């Protein structure tokens, strides 16, 4: 069960759960949906399955994916971070503005942009843990503030040209794969290793899954929560650098409403808004699904406004299929267990 959505609980069965193989198949459900969608698309559009198109889709998805890495940490501790899009633009204008207006060396400006992300994350974390403001409200406040600061600093315009380093980043290729894609995958991989193989990662799951149990076990849950918000701020700041590179400008006006897209991608990827469940693999699939839906709608040249209707339907269908597949699998597994059970002698206590 990924979601403690307000759905009907399945009784004791839901309380006690199912077979662990199904966990594995959770992301596989989404994967199947994506593969099915891709198959249909290659049939409908001859250009869909070209290297160029796939590369485009992936490259476009990088920025959301990087932000979503941080957001996943926050959502895993049952928090939410609305400030990400604003942190992204603040980082973007700082990374260019500090060079242009203040004459800093680009490396220092980049560092400053990342520090800005960390600081906003820290503020979010402190507001949530120490002042006990609900995460939604605390990050809504920093979202408004950071966006305001970005506009004030940039004067409401985009700042160009950008230092050479950004142009190089965007143009870079590693083994023929665009550098930004490699960077994104590397960040996701590191994040996943942190989650599954470190004390901190386990503490994130414990804090999100049962904060009281985690605290009683001696985990410093407040620090864990603060750290997740700082990671989210840092990732948003990195995404800000990526957007600077993509548009070759410090973009104060970019990423309007991106926070919702990011949260949606994370949740579609099977990360529970109630904390404690999900991983980076699922998140990446969620980001990919949203990117592919957009791509499909564009390639099929759906008439204007119908595109919204179609993509809404596709997202709902994908989510439903994913859920259905999980339930179907579960039922299948249960049957198998019965069969296995029947063929064995009754167990002795």
């Amino acid at each position: 069960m990924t979601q403690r959505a307000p759905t009907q609980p399945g009784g004791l069965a839901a309380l006690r759960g199912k077979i662990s193989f199904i966990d594995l198949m959770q992301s596989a459900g989404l994967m199947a949906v994506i593969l099915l969608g891709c198959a249909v698309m290659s049939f409908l559009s001859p250009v869909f399955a070209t290297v160029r198109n796939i590369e485009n889709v992936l490259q476009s998805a990088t920025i959301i994916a990087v932000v979503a890495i941080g957001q996943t940490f926050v959502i895993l501790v049952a928090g939410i971070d609305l400030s990400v899009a604003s942190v992204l633009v603040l980082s973007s204008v700082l990374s260019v503005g500090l060079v242009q207006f203040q004459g800093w060396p680009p490396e220092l400006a980049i560092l400053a942009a990342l520090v800005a992300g960390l600081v906003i994350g820290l503020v979010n974390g402190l507001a949530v843990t120490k002042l006990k403001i609900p995460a939604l409200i605390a990050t809504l406040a920093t979202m408004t503030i950071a966006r305001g600061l970005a506009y004030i600093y940039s004067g409401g315009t985009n700042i160009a040209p950008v230092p050479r380093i950004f142009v190089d980043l965007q143009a870079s290729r590693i083994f023929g794969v665009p550098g930004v894609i490699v960077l994104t995958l590397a960040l996701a991989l590191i994040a996943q290793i942190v989650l599954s193989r470190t004390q901190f990662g386990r503490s994130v799951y414990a804090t999100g899954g049962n904060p009281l149990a985690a605290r009683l076990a001696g985990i410093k849950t407040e620090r864990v929560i603060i750290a997740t918000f700082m990671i989210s701020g840092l990732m948003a700041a990195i995404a800000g650098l990526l957007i600077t590179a993509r548009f070759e400008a410090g973009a104060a006006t970019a990423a309007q409403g991106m926070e919702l897209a990011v949260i949606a991608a994370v949740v579609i990827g099977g990360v529970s808004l109630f904390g404690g469940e999900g991983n980076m693999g699922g998140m990446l699939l969620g980001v990919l699904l949203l990117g592919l839906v957009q791509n499909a709608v564009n390639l099929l040249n759906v008439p204007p406004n119908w595109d919204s209707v179609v993509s809404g339907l596709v997202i709902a269908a994908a989510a439903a299929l994913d859920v259905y597949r999980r339930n179907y699998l579960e039922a299948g597994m249960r049957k198998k267990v019965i069969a296995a059970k029947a063929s064995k002698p009754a167990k002795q206590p």
Partner: protein
Amino acid sequence: EDGVLKGKNLAYIAFGLQYEYQVTLVNRVKELAAEKGMSISVYDGKGDPSTQTTQLLDVVSKQPDIILLNPVDAKLLQGGVRKANESGIPLFMLENLPPEGEWVAYNTFDDVAGGAAGADAIAKLIGGKGLVLEVRGAIGSGQSEKRYKGFHDQVAAKYPDIKVETLKAEWTADNAHTLVLDAFTRDPNVAGIWAHNDEMIRGVVSALRQINRLKLAGEEGHVPTVGFDGTPLGLERIREGTQDADVGQNPFSMAESIVGEMENHFAGKPVAKETLIQPVMIWKENVDSPDNWGNRVN
């Protein structure tokens, strides 16, 4: 004559200070107000009609001497305009008009002419035929609708060999980027691109760069682009050769003319009820002209 505006209170509800063109317009109005001895309060409409309606109501309760309104979506400010009319405060309008209501003077850029000029420019660049991507602004926005109309009417009338494909990018570079990428995947034989503002050209350029189609003007394989606004970055791109032309607006003359009408109104002189400011095409040849507002902001 210098004194009619002195000491007057001007409340200016701006379109939104997230747009470079609007910021320049606001700054110029502020300068002029200072020159004339007016005190001015600017409200940031943030591109949102609800915010503007609330601001208009708040402004009416503060009872300024003049209201200057630049509606994001004029139809939606109908109710607010009525309130302003009831209060008897003279209302000056910029860029968009509500269907009903009273105002002293209305000053706007001729967006339909701008759209037509855009069509002429792109037609010239691509030799009158081929597929053109139109990267449009938000549905429902008055400016975008007029630019769309001007462009399409002109193409229909004069350039039968041009095929237009419209992309709904809603004014943002992010959307323009993805939409253009996918449009090229769908059909790489794009002859030219025209966008409803310069901001979206940013997305266009980055998309072209990503698919290796970004060639400078004059180079083999160059995809001509025409923007709108004449922002500093737009001019910069024309100089550099990543953009070919820009339909130039003029926030300076817009500001000057509307403040002029305020002066006329209070001096009892005749007021031009409606002023249409004509577009100026900006090409590489005249990109450095000091008449371009984009060269006059830092």
